[in-house]
């Protein structure tokens, strides 16, 4: 059983797992490891570590900003592997690398998967690899024991949800609304999300489901993830980092935000 499966296995029935997205190298190169460890202490169950890309076409302004900043900070794929390796000396939190395919392709897919496995990465989320294009990476991911996590959206057909379930391992990533990443008004999301999650539950039986896009508070998470196994926060966390960094106690403030996301104020 890998670390992702284990964390779902150990989850208490009524609780929700919290997965946090952080762009590696944002807000600076040195902070990433500390932030991940602090997130874990304050309630994070899974970390999605973003591999920045110059052209993040499924992302809104917030993650465009963190990606740009990380690239300007000079983050490389090898830095990202180093960060994971450092976290692994102190923590067993599941780490999923998330990012667009081009930097992975350029690094060399097999070499990438091998290295990711070596440093202790558990899975991959690649938003511009739909099921149709999965063959470009699936064999190497399997070979190096990395879980492929596919996404489903409100406009995904039942048939494709079943395929995403079959191809995914660890969990399936449910995108709550059609649109780019970014914090939204909770109401905008929760209105339509129940019907979507109902359909997800009918079609996805092998994997737990995590829901993301538009969650920015504990209350949003409760509403939106009501019938999911957990929730994902990305843009709201990046926004919080952006507003605190580099003020006094910036990490402390961020960790308290993370704590409130999971447990309420």
């Amino acid at each position: 059983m890998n670390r992702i499966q284990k964390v779902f296995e150990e989850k208490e029935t009524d609780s929700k797992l919290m997965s946090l997205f952080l762009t590696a190298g944002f807000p600076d190169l040195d902070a990433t490891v500390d932030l991940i460890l602090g997130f874990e202490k304050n309630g994070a169950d899974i970390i999605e570590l973003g591999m920045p890309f110059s052209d993040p076409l499924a992302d809104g302004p917030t993650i465009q900003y963190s990606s740009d900043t990380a690239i300007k900070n000079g983050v490389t794929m090898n830095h990202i592997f180093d960060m994971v390796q450092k976290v692994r000396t102190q923590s067993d939190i599941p780490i999923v690398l998330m990012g667009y395919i081009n930097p992975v392709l350029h690094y060399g897919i097999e070499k990438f998967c091998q290295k990711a496995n070596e440093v202790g990465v558990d899975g991959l989320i690649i938003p511009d690899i739909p099921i149709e294009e999965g063959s470009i990476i699936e064999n190497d991911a399997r070979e190096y024991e990395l879980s492929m996590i596919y996404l489903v959206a409100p406009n995904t057909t039942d048939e494709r949800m079943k395929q995403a379930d079959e191809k995914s391992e660890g969990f399936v990533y449910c995108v709550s609304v059609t649109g780019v990443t970014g914090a939204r008004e909770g109401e905008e999301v929760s209105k339509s999300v129940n019907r979507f999650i109902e359909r997800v539950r009918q079609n996805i039986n092998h994997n737990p489901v995590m829901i993301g896009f538009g969650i920015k508070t504990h209350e949003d998470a409760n509403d939106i993830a009501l019938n999911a196994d957990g929730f994902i926060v990305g843009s709201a966390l990046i926004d919080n980092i952006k507003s605190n960094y580099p003020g006094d106690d910036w990490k402390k403030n961020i960790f308290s935000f993370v704590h409130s996301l999971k447990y309420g104020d």
Partner: protein
Amino acid sequence: MTQTNTKPYNFPDARGYFGSYGGKFVPEILIPAIQALEQEYLKAKDDPEFQKEFHGLLKEYVGRPTELTFANRLTEHYGKAKIYLKREDLCHTGAHKINNAIGQVLLARRMGKTRIIAETGAGQHGVATATACAKFGLDCIVYMGEEDMVRQKLNVDRMELLGAEVRSVTSGSRTLKDATNEAIRDWVTNVDDTFYIIGSVVGPHPYPAMVRNFHEVIGKETQRQIQEAEGKSPNYLLACVGGGSNAIGFFYPFIEEKSIRIIGIEAGGLGVDSGKTAATITKGSPGVLHGSLSYLLQSKEGQIELAHSISAGLDYPGVGPEHAHLKDLGRVDYYSITDAEAMEAVKLLSKKEGIIPALETAHAFAWLEKLMPETSEGEIVIVNCSGRGDKDMKTISENL
């Protein structure tokens, strides 16, 4: 690599691949949209009514067929092969782009989509899309890099006059690549009612094939016209390549005629090794951008690099996947021309033929300097004169 394959050229395959290139590398949210588009396009392609309407508009509205003009003074200037020009600059709106815009607007209407979005670099595709939307009464939003809006002010004014909303893109390099990102983000957000009219043979399947097919009329007319004028096939075809739509439309019907040498010219910018270039095939390597796998200009970390060209329409760090495939097959040769060489070609064509070419188009003409000495009398060169230069007068004046 030389071509050893004797099977007929028939790409893309069912997965949308041209050999190793192409595919549909898009977020899940867009999959239903591109599947619906593919289904509808395949139906329309074989629907005589659709074809009749499309070709009717190309005739009555675009002004096709465009002429094939013998360039007598340019031919005299080089004193070798005869040079002909395929006059896409005579199309309504001033470039070939309108063929594709009309085709896609007809499809959008068939699919009941009421909101059209497009990206534009030089503004030619934006103008063509705005024009087609005006003709059919559809809402039109064009994404354009802030930088390009300054360089191509005239086209911004044209689009607005045609009733389109031009949205300034301030992310990234503020050019075509970023305008494309923003258009895709809009599409992801408004996928239900929105049709994305891509302006070149790029993007996820079925766009590269569909856009090619809307432009293949260029090559088909040329085939017929050169037979009428000379009673034989040309020896050389020459076109500029940014994303590559004018080139592929011109080349495609000739691909099986193996005796014809086909040449695509990229924008070398300040020189292919200067770091300021848009010569994607010459200088790039395979990667994924904007939904397909093709050659890209990218850093050692796989980040997309900024392209540079004097011509906004060629200023793109990617290229259509079919060009990548034709390059690997060895069927088309790709070279590059610098900004300065393109400017010289603008002057030469203007003085010798009374035709001011677009800066994009001038790249193809500039290659005549290298090609013509290798040719001989009795041979025929056809250059795709893809667009006219009025829109570039500001840049041209600054560089004279």
